[in-house]
């Protein structure tokens, strides 16, 4: 099975609403990165997490290494939030980015 499982695989939101994306890990992750792939194709880093929580504007992410999951909360969704969100798990805090395992992504569409 998938080592990094993202849910849901696709999501449609009305502008102004809130939602949460989730990653479950079947590997021993000690770091998590969240990315948004924009329509041009580039992945933009949203968060780099060790266990705990981070917030940036309307986005908030949490990583629980003991329960092996991470969440990305989107508050007051805007049209520009549309795209595919990827999480990537790092196997240890001293490891390089070369050891990242990516999930398959959550495709988010925000509609007006």
């Amino acid at each position, binding site marked *: 099975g998938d080592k990094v499982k993202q849910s849901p695989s696709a999501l449609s939101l009305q502008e102004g609403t809130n939602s949460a994306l989730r990653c479950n890990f079947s590997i021993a992750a000690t770091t998590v990165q969240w990315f948004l792939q924009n329509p041009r*194709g*580039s992945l933009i880093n949203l968060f*780099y997490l060790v266990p705990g929580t981070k917030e940036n504007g309307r986005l908030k992410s949490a990583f629980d290494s003991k329960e092996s999951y991470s969440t990305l909360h989107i508050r007051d969704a805007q049209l520009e939030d549309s795209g595919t969100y*990827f999480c990537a798990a790092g196997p240890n805090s001293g490891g390089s980015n*070369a050891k*990242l395992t*990516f999930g398959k992504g959550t495709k988010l569409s925000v509609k007006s």
Partner: protein
Amino acid sequence: GGIITQTPKFLIGQEGQKLTLKCQQNFNHDTMYWYRQDSGKGLRLIYYSITENDLQKGDLSEGYDASREKKSSFSLTVTSAQKNEMAVFLCASSITGVGNTLYFGEGSRLIVV
């Protein structure tokens, strides 16, 4: 800020052909990476390089060669293009070390006819 430039954006080749993708970064990052993205799948690492002239294999290196000609550039060669290799190839870079995130280019789409 910096930028990662991938060329070409679309690469069309024939089956069996040797095809090369190029990547340039002006972040002055030590480490560069090539990932393959297939539709509906996560990114998989092909090759990475931690410094000029260094090469390290990723999970998907078979059928590919790479070259880190200088710190700012990293190229990827598909040694014999196959139709099942049509995918988007993403180049990334980062500072080497803990807590340093990846910065990505916009991708190059490989089309094999």
